[in-house]
Protein backbone atom coordinates (compact mmCIF):
# COMPACT_ATOMS: atom_id res chain seq x y z
CA UNK A 1 0.00 0.00 0.00
CA UNK A 2 1.25 3.46 -0.90
CA UNK A 3 2.12 5.79 1.98
CA UNK A 4 0.26 8.61 0.26
CA UNK A 5 -2.25 8.15 -2.49
CA UNK A 6 -3.91 11.05 -4.28
CA UNK A 7 -6.74 10.28 -6.70
CA UNK A 8 -8.49 12.58 -9.15
CA UNK A 9 -7.91 15.65 -7.02
CA UNK A 10 -9.69 18.86 -8.03
CA UNK A 11 -8.99 22.15 -6.27
CA UNK A 12 -10.17 25.64 -7.13
CA UNK A 13 -10.02 29.16 -5.76
CA UNK A 14 -13.37 30.64 -6.63
CA UNK A 15 -13.56 30.46 -10.41
CA UNK A 16 -9.86 29.58 -10.84
CA UNK A 17 -9.37 25.85 -11.30
CA UNK A 18 -5.87 25.37 -9.95
CA UNK A 19 -5.75 21.55 -9.88
CA UNK A 20 -7.88 19.57 -12.31
CA UNK A 21 -7.90 15.88 -11.59
CA UNK A 22 -4.42 14.81 -10.65
CA UNK A 23 -3.50 11.40 -9.27
CA UNK A 24 -0.21 10.17 -7.87
CA UNK A 25 1.25 7.81 -5.28
CA UNK A 26 4.20 7.89 -2.97
CA UNK A 27 5.66 4.70 -1.54
CA UNK A 28 7.30 4.51 1.85
CA UNK A 29 10.96 5.55 1.62
CA UNK A 30 10.78 7.31 -1.73
CA UNK A 31 11.73 10.77 -2.85
CA UNK A 32 9.04 11.91 -5.27
CA UNK A 33 9.15 15.25 -7.00
CA UNK A 34 6.47 17.39 -8.61
CA UNK A 35 7.87 19.74 -11.20
CA UNK A 36 6.10 22.28 -13.35
CA UNK A 37 6.00 25.89 -14.44
CA UNK A 38 4.77 28.79 -12.30
CA UNK A 39 1.09 28.47 -11.58
CA UNK A 40 0.93 24.77 -12.54
CA UNK A 41 -0.69 23.96 -9.21
CA UNK A 42 2.22 22.49 -7.26
CA UNK A 43 1.80 24.52 -4.08
CA UNK A 44 -1.94 24.10 -4.27
CA UNK A 45 -1.48 20.33 -4.32
CA UNK A 46 0.78 20.36 -1.25
CA UNK A 47 -1.43 22.80 0.64
CA UNK A 48 -4.45 20.64 -0.06
CA UNK A 49 -2.72 17.52 1.23
CA UNK A 50 -1.68 19.46 4.36
CA UNK A 51 -5.29 20.48 4.93
CA UNK A 52 -4.99 24.25 4.61
CA UNK A 53 -6.83 24.32 1.28
CA UNK A 54 -10.05 22.34 0.79
CA UNK A 55 -10.39 20.19 -2.33
CA UNK A 56 -13.52 20.26 -4.50
CA UNK A 57 -13.36 16.53 -5.06
CA UNK A 58 -11.04 13.58 -5.16
CA UNK A 59 -9.38 11.51 -2.47
CA UNK A 60 -6.22 11.83 -0.43
CA UNK A 61 -5.19 8.81 1.61
CA UNK A 62 -2.29 8.72 4.04
CA UNK A 63 -1.45 5.28 5.44
CA UNK A 64 -4.84 4.15 4.19
CA UNK A 65 -6.72 6.87 6.04
CA UNK A 66 -8.60 9.64 4.24
CA UNK A 67 -7.30 13.15 4.87
CA UNK A 68 -10.12 14.97 3.10
CA UNK A 69 -11.96 17.12 5.62
CA UNK A 70 -9.40 16.48 8.37
CA UNK A 71 -8.23 19.71 10.02
CA UNK A 72 -4.68 20.84 9.26
CA UNK A 73 -3.52 20.54 12.87
CA UNK A 74 -4.77 16.95 13.02
CA UNK A 75 -2.91 16.06 9.84
CA UNK A 76 0.38 17.07 11.43
CA UNK A 77 -0.34 14.65 14.28
CA UNK A 78 -0.73 11.83 11.77
CA UNK A 79 2.88 12.24 10.64
CA UNK A 80 2.67 14.52 7.63
CA UNK A 81 4.49 17.85 7.61
CA UNK A 82 4.67 20.62 5.05
CA UNK A 83 7.59 23.01 4.88
CA UNK A 84 5.80 25.80 3.01
CA UNK A 85 6.82 27.89 0.04
CA UNK A 86 8.62 31.05 1.12
CA UNK A 87 9.69 29.40 4.42
CA UNK A 88 7.19 31.30 6.57
CA UNK A 89 9.29 31.15 9.73
CA UNK A 90 7.87 33.12 12.67
CA UNK A 91 10.17 36.07 12.21
CA UNK A 92 9.59 37.73 15.58
CA UNK A 93 10.16 34.52 17.51
CA UNK A 94 13.55 33.02 18.30
CA UNK A 95 15.01 30.02 16.49
CA UNK A 96 14.37 27.86 19.55
CA UNK A 97 10.75 29.05 19.78
CA UNK A 98 10.20 28.33 16.09
CA UNK A 99 11.45 24.80 16.62
CA UNK A 100 9.26 24.42 19.68
CA UNK A 101 6.25 25.40 17.54
CA UNK A 102 7.28 22.73 15.04
CA UNK A 103 6.94 20.15 17.81
CA UNK A 104 3.61 21.55 18.99
CA UNK A 105 1.80 18.22 18.64
CA UNK A 106 4.52 16.22 20.38
CA UNK A 107 5.28 15.84 24.07
CA UNK A 108 8.03 17.86 25.75
CA UNK A 109 10.22 14.80 26.24
CA UNK A 110 9.86 13.81 22.59
CA UNK A 111 10.71 17.37 21.59
CA UNK A 112 13.82 17.45 23.76
CA UNK A 113 15.06 14.40 21.88
CA UNK A 114 14.09 15.58 18.41
CA UNK A 115 15.63 18.97 19.11
CA UNK A 116 19.02 17.33 19.60
CA UNK A 117 18.65 15.54 16.28
CA UNK A 118 17.67 18.76 14.52
CA UNK A 119 20.52 20.73 16.08
CA UNK A 120 22.93 17.99 15.04
CA UNK A 121 21.66 18.16 11.49
CA UNK A 122 21.69 21.99 11.44
CA UNK A 123 24.51 23.11 13.75
CA UNK A 124 24.03 26.69 12.61
CA UNK A 125 20.57 26.71 14.16
CA UNK A 126 22.01 25.66 17.48
CA UNK A 127 24.51 28.52 17.40
CA UNK A 128 21.67 30.91 16.72
CA UNK A 129 19.00 29.43 18.96
CA UNK A 130 18.27 32.71 20.77
CA UNK A 131 18.34 34.89 17.67
CA UNK A 132 15.00 36.09 16.25
CA UNK A 133 14.23 34.19 13.06
CA UNK A 134 13.69 37.38 11.06
CA UNK A 135 17.37 38.25 11.44
CA UNK A 136 18.60 34.94 9.93
CA UNK A 137 19.98 34.80 6.40
CA UNK A 138 17.81 33.26 3.70
CA UNK A 139 19.71 29.97 3.84
CA UNK A 140 19.46 29.82 7.61
CA UNK A 141 15.75 30.56 7.44
CA UNK A 142 15.31 27.65 5.02
CA UNK A 143 17.17 25.38 7.43
CA UNK A 144 14.97 26.63 10.24
CA UNK A 145 11.84 25.98 8.19
CA UNK A 146 13.03 22.44 7.48
CA UNK A 147 14.14 21.86 11.07
CA UNK A 148 10.80 23.14 12.28
CA UNK A 149 8.94 20.71 10.02
CA UNK A 150 11.16 17.86 11.25
CA UNK A 151 10.26 18.64 14.86
CA UNK A 152 6.88 16.97 14.31
CA UNK A 153 8.73 13.74 13.40
CA UNK A 154 6.98 13.37 10.05
CA UNK A 155 6.88 10.11 8.14
CA UNK A 156 6.22 12.13 5.01
CA UNK A 157 7.91 15.50 4.64
CA UNK A 158 6.60 17.79 1.93
CA UNK A 159 9.00 20.53 0.83
CA UNK A 160 7.74 23.41 -1.30
CA UNK A 161 10.63 24.98 -3.21
CA UNK A 162 13.29 24.64 -0.54
CA UNK A 163 16.00 26.04 -2.83
CA UNK A 164 14.13 29.20 -3.77
CA UNK A 165 16.36 32.27 -3.66
CA UNK A 166 19.44 30.48 -2.39
CA UNK A 167 23.00 30.67 -3.70
CA UNK A 168 24.12 27.56 -5.66
CA UNK A 169 26.36 26.29 -2.88
CA UNK A 170 23.47 26.44 -0.41
CA UNK A 171 21.15 24.78 -2.90
CA UNK A 172 23.60 21.88 -3.01
CA UNK A 173 23.68 21.76 0.78
CA UNK A 174 19.89 21.71 1.04
CA UNK A 175 19.63 18.89 -1.52
CA UNK A 176 22.31 16.90 0.33
CA UNK A 177 20.30 17.28 3.51
CA UNK A 178 17.12 16.13 1.78
CA UNK A 179 18.91 13.00 0.56
CA UNK A 180 20.29 12.28 4.01
CA UNK A 181 16.90 12.73 5.65
CA UNK A 182 15.52 10.27 3.14
CA UNK A 183 18.26 7.74 3.83
CA UNK A 184 17.38 7.94 7.51
CA UNK A 185 13.82 6.91 6.71
CA UNK A 186 11.78 10.04 5.95
CA UNK A 187 9.71 9.84 2.80
CA UNK A 188 9.93 13.05 0.78
CA UNK A 189 7.55 14.86 -1.55
CA UNK A 190 9.56 17.62 -3.17
CA UNK A 191 8.26 20.52 -5.24
CA UNK A 192 10.93 22.42 -7.12
CA UNK A 193 11.56 24.99 -9.80
CA UNK A 194 15.08 23.64 -9.94
CA UNK A 195 13.93 20.61 -11.91
CA UNK A 196 17.33 19.14 -12.75
CA UNK A 197 18.43 19.03 -9.13
CA UNK A 198 15.09 17.66 -8.01
CA UNK A 199 14.97 14.94 -10.68
CA UNK A 200 18.56 13.93 -9.99
CA UNK A 201 17.82 12.98 -6.38
CA UNK A 202 14.25 11.73 -6.90
CA UNK A 203 13.18 8.12 -7.32
CA UNK A 204 10.22 9.26 -9.35
CA UNK A 205 8.81 12.48 -10.69
CA UNK A 206 5.55 13.91 -11.97
CA UNK A 207 5.33 16.80 -14.42
CA UNK A 208 2.46 19.14 -13.69
CA UNK A 209 1.04 21.35 -16.42
CA UNK A 210 -1.78 23.78 -15.67
CA UNK A 211 -3.49 21.51 -13.20
CA UNK A 212 -2.86 18.21 -15.03
CA UNK A 213 -0.13 15.62 -14.78
CA UNK A 214 1.40 15.49 -18.24
CA UNK A 215 4.21 13.01 -17.65
CA UNK A 216 5.56 10.65 -15.05
CA UNK A 217 8.58 8.41 -14.74
CA UNK A 218 11.72 7.76 -12.74
CA UNK A 219 13.88 10.76 -11.94
CA UNK A 220 16.50 9.65 -14.45
CA UNK A 221 13.98 9.02 -17.25
CA UNK A 222 12.48 12.47 -16.86
CA UNK A 223 15.91 14.05 -16.61
CA UNK A 224 16.68 12.66 -20.06
CA UNK A 225 13.24 13.12 -21.57
CA UNK A 226 13.32 15.50 -24.55
CA UNK A 227 10.07 17.33 -23.75
CA UNK A 228 11.02 17.77 -20.12
CA UNK A 229 14.49 19.00 -21.09
CA UNK A 230 13.01 21.55 -23.46
CA UNK A 231 10.36 22.81 -21.07
CA UNK A 232 12.06 22.73 -17.69
CA UNK A 233 15.76 22.15 -18.05
CA UNK A 234 16.63 24.84 -20.53
CA UNK A 235 17.42 22.61 -23.53
Amino acid at each position, binding site marked *: MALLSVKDLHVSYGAIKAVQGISFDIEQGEIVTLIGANGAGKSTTLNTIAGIVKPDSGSIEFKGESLVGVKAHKI*VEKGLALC*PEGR*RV*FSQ*MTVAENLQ*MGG*YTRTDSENAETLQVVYERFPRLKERMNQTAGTLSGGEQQMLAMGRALMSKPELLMLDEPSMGLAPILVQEIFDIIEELNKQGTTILLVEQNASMALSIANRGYVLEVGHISKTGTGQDLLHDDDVRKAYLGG
Partner: protein
Amino acid sequence: MTFLTQLLNGLQLGSIYALVALGYTMVYGIILLLNFAHGDIIMVGAYISWIVMAKLGMSPALAVVLSVAGCTLLGVLIDKVAYAPLRNAPRLSILITAIGVSYFLENGAQLVFGADAKVVPAFISTSTIKVGGVSLSLNAIITIIVTAVCTVVLQLLVQKTKLGKAMRAVSEDMGAARLMGINVNTTISFTFALGSALAGIGAVLYSMAYSQATPTMGIMLGTKAFVAAVLGGIGSIPGAVIGGLLVGFAEVFVSALGLSVWKDAVVFLLLIIVLVVKPTGILGRTMNEKV
Protein backbone atom coordinates in the same frame (compact mmCIF):
# COMPACT_ATOMS: atom_id res chain seq x y z
CA MET B 1 -5.07 66.99 48.19
CA THR B 2 -1.39 66.63 47.75
CA PHE B 3 0.70 65.79 44.78
CA LEU B 4 0.94 62.25 46.13
CA THR B 5 -2.83 61.85 46.15
CA GLN B 6 -3.03 63.04 42.57
CA LEU B 7 -0.25 60.70 41.57
CA LEU B 8 -2.11 57.81 43.16
CA ASN B 9 -5.34 58.83 41.42
CA GLY B 10 -3.54 58.96 38.09
CA LEU B 11 -2.02 55.54 38.68
CA GLN B 12 -5.38 54.10 39.71
CA LEU B 13 -7.27 55.40 36.70
CA GLY B 14 -4.35 54.58 34.42
CA SER B 15 -4.25 51.01 35.75
CA ILE B 16 -7.89 50.46 34.88
CA TYR B 17 -7.34 51.82 31.38
CA ALA B 18 -4.27 49.60 31.10
CA LEU B 19 -6.20 46.44 32.01
CA VAL B 20 -8.86 47.23 29.45
CA ALA B 21 -6.28 48.25 26.85
CA LEU B 22 -4.56 44.86 27.27
CA GLY B 23 -7.73 43.15 26.07
CA TYR B 24 -7.93 45.37 22.99
CA THR B 25 -4.30 44.85 22.18
CA MET B 26 -4.34 41.07 22.56
CA VAL B 27 -7.37 40.57 20.35
CA TYR B 28 -6.00 43.00 17.77
CA GLY B 29 -2.63 41.26 17.90
CA ILE B 30 -4.09 37.89 17.03
CA ILE B 31 -6.92 38.57 14.56
CA LEU B 32 -6.42 42.26 13.67
CA LEU B 33 -9.86 43.06 15.04
CA LEU B 34 -10.70 46.23 16.92
CA ASN B 35 -13.12 44.60 19.30
CA PHE B 36 -15.56 47.44 19.87
CA ALA B 37 -17.59 45.27 22.22
CA HIS B 38 -14.69 45.06 24.67
CA GLY B 39 -15.79 48.08 26.72
CA ASP B 40 -19.30 46.67 26.97
CA ILE B 41 -17.97 43.46 28.45
CA ILE B 42 -16.81 45.59 31.38
CA MET B 43 -20.29 47.01 31.70
CA VAL B 44 -21.69 43.48 31.97
CA GLY B 45 -19.05 42.71 34.60
CA ALA B 46 -20.14 45.72 36.66
CA TYR B 47 -23.79 44.58 36.51
CA ILE B 48 -22.77 41.10 37.62
CA SER B 49 -21.08 42.63 40.68
CA TRP B 50 -24.20 44.66 41.35
CA ILE B 51 -26.49 41.62 41.07
CA VAL B 52 -24.32 39.46 43.30
CA MET B 53 -23.87 42.04 46.04
CA ALA B 54 -26.90 44.33 45.91
CA LYS B 55 -29.62 41.97 44.67
CA LEU B 56 -28.49 38.65 46.08
CA GLY B 57 -26.71 40.07 49.12
CA MET B 58 -23.74 37.81 48.66
CA SER B 59 -20.11 38.48 49.45
CA PRO B 60 -17.81 40.81 47.52
CA ALA B 61 -15.41 37.91 47.02
CA LEU B 62 -18.11 36.00 45.18
CA ALA B 63 -18.89 39.13 43.16
CA VAL B 64 -15.26 39.31 42.04
CA VAL B 65 -15.17 35.65 41.04
CA LEU B 66 -18.49 35.73 39.20
CA SER B 67 -17.73 39.02 37.44
CA VAL B 68 -14.42 37.76 36.14
CA ALA B 69 -15.87 34.36 35.18
CA GLY B 70 -18.89 35.99 33.55
CA CYS B 71 -16.78 38.38 31.48
CA THR B 72 -14.46 35.55 30.41
CA LEU B 73 -17.36 33.42 29.21
CA LEU B 74 -19.02 36.36 27.51
CA GLY B 75 -15.85 37.24 25.62
CA VAL B 76 -15.38 33.68 24.36
CA LEU B 77 -19.07 33.42 23.49
CA ILE B 78 -18.99 36.67 21.48
CA ASP B 79 -16.03 35.36 19.50
CA LYS B 80 -17.67 31.99 18.83
CA VAL B 81 -21.07 33.38 17.87
CA ALA B 82 -20.22 36.64 16.14
CA TYR B 83 -16.61 36.69 14.97
CA ALA B 84 -15.54 33.08 14.33
CA PRO B 85 -18.00 32.56 11.44
CA LEU B 86 -16.41 35.60 9.75
CA ARG B 87 -12.79 34.49 10.12
CA ASN B 88 -12.23 34.51 6.37
CA ALA B 89 -14.48 37.47 5.63
CA PRO B 90 -13.13 40.94 4.81
CA ARG B 91 -11.95 42.83 7.86
CA LEU B 92 -14.63 45.47 7.46
CA SER B 93 -17.41 42.89 7.91
CA ILE B 94 -16.06 41.72 11.23
CA LEU B 95 -15.45 45.30 12.35
CA ILE B 96 -19.07 46.18 11.67
CA THR B 97 -20.11 43.01 13.50
CA ALA B 98 -18.12 44.17 16.52
CA ILE B 99 -19.99 47.48 16.49
CA GLY B 100 -23.23 45.51 16.26
CA VAL B 101 -22.31 43.36 19.24
CA SER B 102 -21.50 46.52 21.17
CA TYR B 103 -24.93 48.04 20.48
CA PHE B 104 -26.56 44.71 21.27
CA LEU B 105 -24.94 44.56 24.71
CA GLU B 106 -25.70 48.21 25.52
CA ASN B 107 -29.33 48.00 24.49
CA GLY B 108 -29.70 44.55 26.01
CA ALA B 109 -28.50 45.92 29.35
CA GLN B 110 -30.85 48.87 29.10
CA LEU B 111 -33.74 46.51 28.40
CA VAL B 112 -32.93 44.25 31.32
CA PHE B 113 -31.70 46.74 33.93
CA GLY B 114 -33.17 50.05 32.79
CA ALA B 115 -31.30 53.20 31.85
CA ASP B 116 -30.73 54.53 35.36
CA ALA B 117 -27.50 53.92 37.22
CA LYS B 118 -27.31 51.05 39.67
CA VAL B 119 -25.21 51.54 42.76
CA VAL B 120 -22.59 48.84 43.16
CA PRO B 121 -21.93 48.33 46.90
CA ALA B 122 -18.40 48.78 48.24
CA PHE B 123 -16.14 45.77 47.90
CA ILE B 124 -14.04 46.70 50.93
CA SER B 125 -15.14 48.39 54.13
CA THR B 126 -12.04 50.42 54.95
CA SER B 127 -11.43 53.08 52.36
CA THR B 128 -8.09 54.53 53.42
CA ILE B 129 -4.88 53.41 55.06
CA LYS B 130 -2.35 55.60 56.77
CA VAL B 131 1.22 55.39 55.59
CA GLY B 132 3.61 57.61 57.55
CA GLY B 133 0.94 60.10 58.48
CA VAL B 134 -0.52 60.34 54.97
CA SER B 135 -3.83 58.62 54.35
CA LEU B 136 -3.99 56.86 51.03
CA SER B 137 -6.92 55.35 49.18
CA LEU B 138 -6.95 51.61 49.67
CA ASN B 139 -8.93 51.15 46.46
CA ALA B 140 -6.19 52.91 44.54
CA ILE B 141 -3.47 50.79 46.07
CA ILE B 142 -5.33 47.54 45.40
CA THR B 143 -6.00 48.61 41.82
CA ILE B 144 -2.37 49.41 41.16
CA ILE B 145 -1.08 46.18 42.68
CA VAL B 146 -3.64 44.00 40.91
CA THR B 147 -2.81 45.61 37.57
CA ALA B 148 0.91 45.21 38.08
CA VAL B 149 0.47 41.53 38.94
CA CYS B 150 -1.85 40.93 35.99
CA THR B 151 0.59 42.56 33.59
CA VAL B 152 3.55 40.52 34.80
CA VAL B 153 1.58 37.26 34.73
CA LEU B 154 0.25 38.02 31.26
CA GLN B 155 3.68 38.89 29.93
CA LEU B 156 5.15 35.65 31.34
CA LEU B 157 2.28 33.68 29.90
CA VAL B 158 2.71 35.11 26.42
CA GLN B 159 6.50 34.95 26.39
CA LYS B 160 7.20 31.69 28.19
CA THR B 161 4.33 29.21 27.96
CA LYS B 162 3.58 26.94 25.05
CA LEU B 163 0.11 28.41 24.65
CA GLY B 164 1.48 31.95 24.76
CA LYS B 165 3.98 31.11 22.06
CA ALA B 166 1.18 29.61 20.01
CA MET B 167 -0.67 32.92 20.36
CA ARG B 168 2.34 34.74 19.00
CA ALA B 169 2.72 32.23 16.18
CA VAL B 170 -0.94 32.60 15.20
CA SER B 171 -0.67 36.37 15.31
CA GLU B 172 2.32 36.32 12.98
CA ASP B 173 1.16 33.77 10.44
CA MET B 174 -2.07 31.87 10.93
CA GLY B 175 -1.44 29.51 8.01
CA ALA B 176 2.04 28.57 9.15
CA ALA B 177 0.73 28.10 12.69
CA ARG B 178 -1.80 25.56 11.42
CA LEU B 179 1.00 23.71 9.64
CA MET B 180 2.73 23.37 13.01
CA GLY B 181 -0.29 21.54 14.38
CA ILE B 182 -1.56 24.53 16.35
CA ASN B 183 -5.33 24.59 16.69
CA VAL B 184 -5.92 28.17 15.60
CA ASN B 185 -9.53 28.35 16.80
CA THR B 186 -8.64 27.18 20.30
CA THR B 187 -5.79 29.65 20.43
CA ILE B 188 -8.02 32.53 19.40
CA SER B 189 -10.66 31.49 21.96
CA PHE B 190 -7.97 31.44 24.61
CA THR B 191 -6.92 34.96 23.64
CA PHE B 192 -10.49 36.19 23.97
CA ALA B 193 -10.78 34.43 27.32
CA LEU B 194 -7.64 36.11 28.63
CA GLY B 195 -8.55 39.56 27.35
CA SER B 196 -12.07 39.27 28.73
CA ALA B 197 -10.87 37.99 32.10
CA LEU B 198 -8.77 41.15 32.33
CA ALA B 199 -11.87 43.13 31.40
CA GLY B 200 -13.69 41.38 34.26
CA ILE B 201 -10.94 42.39 36.67
CA GLY B 202 -11.14 45.89 35.20
CA ALA B 203 -14.91 45.87 35.82
CA VAL B 204 -14.42 45.10 39.49
CA LEU B 205 -11.70 47.74 39.89
CA TYR B 206 -13.81 50.30 38.03
CA SER B 207 -16.82 49.54 40.21
CA MET B 208 -14.65 49.94 43.29
CA ALA B 209 -13.68 53.39 42.10
CA TYR B 210 -16.99 54.68 40.77
CA SER B 211 -19.59 52.45 42.48
CA GLN B 212 -22.07 52.47 39.66
CA ALA B 213 -23.19 50.51 36.64
CA THR B 214 -24.99 52.00 33.64
CA PRO B 215 -25.72 50.45 30.22
CA THR B 216 -23.43 52.93 28.46
CA MET B 217 -20.55 53.01 30.93
CA GLY B 218 -18.43 50.86 28.61
CA ILE B 219 -18.45 53.36 25.76
CA MET B 220 -16.17 56.05 27.14
CA LEU B 221 -14.12 53.60 29.17
CA GLY B 222 -13.66 51.42 26.10
CA THR B 223 -12.81 54.37 23.89
CA LYS B 224 -10.21 55.70 26.33
CA ALA B 225 -8.67 52.25 26.71
CA PHE B 226 -8.64 51.89 22.95
CA VAL B 227 -6.83 55.22 22.72
CA ALA B 228 -4.40 53.92 25.35
CA ALA B 229 -3.74 50.76 23.31
CA VAL B 230 -3.12 52.77 20.15
CA LEU B 231 -0.95 55.27 22.01
CA GLY B 232 1.25 52.49 23.38
CA GLY B 233 1.36 50.68 20.06
CA ILE B 234 -1.52 48.33 19.39
CA GLY B 235 -0.47 44.69 19.61
CA SER B 236 2.13 45.41 22.29
CA ILE B 237 1.48 44.32 25.88
CA PRO B 238 3.92 46.73 27.57
CA GLY B 239 2.62 49.39 25.17
CA ALA B 240 -0.94 48.93 26.43
CA VAL B 241 0.20 49.47 30.01
CA ILE B 242 2.25 52.56 29.17
CA GLY B 243 -0.62 53.95 27.10
CA GLY B 244 -3.12 53.27 29.88
CA LEU B 245 -1.01 55.02 32.48
CA LEU B 246 -0.40 57.98 30.18
CA VAL B 247 -4.10 58.44 29.55
CA GLY B 248 -4.87 58.09 33.27
CA PHE B 249 -2.25 60.65 34.27
CA ALA B 250 -3.28 63.07 31.55
CA GLU B 251 -6.88 63.01 32.77
CA VAL B 252 -6.06 63.35 36.43
CA PHE B 253 -3.62 66.20 35.97
CA VAL B 254 -5.86 68.14 33.64
CA SER B 255 -8.63 67.78 36.23
CA ALA B 256 -6.27 68.80 39.03
CA LEU B 257 -5.55 72.00 37.16
CA GLY B 258 -9.26 72.74 37.35
CA LEU B 259 -9.80 72.00 33.67
CA SER B 260 -11.76 68.81 34.08
CA VAL B 261 -14.18 69.66 31.26
CA TRP B 262 -11.16 69.38 28.96
CA LYS B 263 -9.92 66.02 30.18
CA ASP B 264 -11.40 63.93 27.35
CA ALA B 265 -10.19 66.41 24.76
CA VAL B 266 -6.68 66.26 26.17
CA VAL B 267 -6.64 62.47 25.88
CA PHE B 268 -7.53 62.62 22.21
CA LEU B 269 -5.08 65.46 21.64
CA LEU B 270 -2.40 63.26 23.17
CA LEU B 271 -3.37 60.51 20.74
CA ILE B 272 -3.10 62.84 17.76
CA ILE B 273 0.31 64.13 18.83
CA VAL B 274 1.75 60.65 19.37
CA LEU B 275 0.35 59.35 16.09
CA VAL B 276 1.79 62.28 14.18
CA VAL B 277 5.22 61.75 15.70
CA LYS B 278 5.16 57.95 15.68
CA PRO B 279 2.27 56.45 13.69
CA THR B 280 2.73 52.96 15.14
CA GLY B 281 2.44 54.21 18.73
CA ILE B 282 5.09 54.41 21.41
CA LEU B 283 6.16 50.75 21.41
CA GLY B 284 4.52 49.74 18.14
CA ARG B 285 6.46 47.85 15.55
CA THR B 286 6.06 48.58 11.92
CA MET B 287 3.26 46.26 10.89
CA ASN B 288 4.39 43.46 8.64
CA GLU B 289 1.96 42.61 5.88
CA LYS B 290 -0.30 39.74 6.76
CA VAL B 291 -0.82 37.07 4.15
